[in-house]
């Protein structure tokens, strides 16, 4: 191989090497810039995640407490199939009688979607108080939206008119 060929070969070799390294560095520098941008973004994202992240265990405890509270509360509401107005009327009737109250009149009435029983009773004030206590201590929520107590007679006898109903649990309403 003569000198001229050798020089040309040398130039070719260096051209190839420089071109290869040039392309390599160009691509790698671009890659590095892209990586640094993504790293900065990811670090920022990670920081935000860590700041925002609430304590999962605390949330689990809270959920369990709520679940328990909700279960207890639901238990005090009637489900649709548990009762109807008439069966409820029997319970209240029996309770009034059991507390020595004389039922003058009672009727069912509907106010909006809710059905109530309206009783007109007469009897001892203590008996009526015990009846109200029984309503208050009932396992389920009984609702007295209206009560009128009249004790003008002055002999310890009261006349009362009240409406009573029961609270239903309806998931759809919630």
């Amino acid at each position, binding site marked *: 191989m003569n000198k001229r060929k050798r020089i040309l070969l040398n130039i070719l070799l260096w051209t190839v090497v420089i071109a290869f390294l040039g392309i390599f560095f160009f691509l790698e520098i671009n890659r590095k810039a892209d990586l640094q941008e993504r790293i900065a973004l990811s670090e920022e994202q*990670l920081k935000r995640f860590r700041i925002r992240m609430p304590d999962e265990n605390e949330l689990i405890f809270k959920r369990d407490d709520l679940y328990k509270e909700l279960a207890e509360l639901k238990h005090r509401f009637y489900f649709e199939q548990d009762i109807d107005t008439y069966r409820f009327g029997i319970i209240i009737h029996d309770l009034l009688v059991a507390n020595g109250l004389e039922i003058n009149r009672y009727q069912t009435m509907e106010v909006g979607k809710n059905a109530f029983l309206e009783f007109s009773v007469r009897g001892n004030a203590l008996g009526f108080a015990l009846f*109200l206590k029984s*309503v208050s201590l009932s396992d389920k929520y009984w609702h007295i939206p209206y009560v009128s107590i009249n004790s003008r007679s002055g002999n310890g006898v009261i006349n009362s008119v009240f409406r009573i109903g029961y609270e239903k649990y309806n998931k759809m309403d919630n």
Partner: protein
Amino acid sequence: MKSYAYLEKKGGKYTLFPFDENRTSDSLFNFKALMMSRMDFDVKVTEISSVPEREIEGFLKYRIRSLYPGQPEDTVFDYSLFTTSKKKKFAILFICRKEVLDEYKKISNGKHLLLPFTLIKPFIAGCLGEAVIFSFWYGSWIDILVFSEKERVDSFVIKRAAKPSLAINQVIKMLPGQANEFNWIIFCSEQEKELLKEKAARMVGKNISVEVFSIQDALNRINRKTDFLFKEEKKKRLINQKLRIQLLCIIVLFIFALLFKKTIDREQRYLMDLESSIGSLAKHTTEVVSLQNEIEAMEEELNSLKEKIPIDTYFVLSELEPVLTKYTRIQSFVLEKNFFHLEATGRNPLTLMERFKEKEVFTNVKLLQIVPLKNSDKELFKISGRVDVE
């Protein structure tokens, strides 16, 4: 200590001498290298600047035919390469008959062989770019190697005059006429060193720098890089120096490129770790968000149910009882949804209102009417208000 030997031919027979002692060798004499007799070799210098390194040997074989009259099959040669300041490359050829070399090899018993020229490489490095003359002084002759300013290299042997001053004159006369300024390096025996140094310094002009070394000094500079002659396997460089430097540059560049790539790969791995962490955190966040949604739904349902909890009439009456005094008698009480209406008789209903204020259950309580009762210290009063039970 390193020991070297040389041969002298006396009476047609070679005799081995150690360099450090003036006695002949015996079989126990152990030496590391053997300096051959200059007189057995023909020394030729040829320029090889344009010859590629791997073709040098072939070129020199071809060149010897015109430089040496002996039969090629009976001739052996070796060479040393020198490069001058202007990148001119020379080969100094050491040519001898094959039987002579065989004799040397037999005597040396496999030890290294060298000629005085083998010793000049460490000295020539300090004189690059200048004319330099090496002369080896032996008992009866002087061996001279000239690297001139004109980029010429010559080698010749002269018979030595008996007196040192005459011998110095002989050498000066042999030098090229145009050599104005040069370094003269003399190698001689230890005994002649001081004398030659003094005489030469006196006889040469100020433009000539003279240094004198004993052969032993030069031998002490022999090391593993020294290019001994007639080695069985001559070191051949597969790749010439220029190409080696270029390849080295390329390798360095590639190593640099690989290191650069490695740092970027490390960043890539770091990013992957980050993304993986974000992924797991995102998954965790999804779970937490789902938990939060569940809690929110439950809270909403709970609030909705709590709103449906009816007012406890018994509780309202129980709260009313401590508000009223023992002199108060309820005539009528009406509770409809959150509103109550009370009609009662009793003393001082105004103080009663103060007590209503203390009860949080009753709000917006108003005293509507007070009618004093005849023949009594009591009054009939009507009160209305709102019941707030949570």
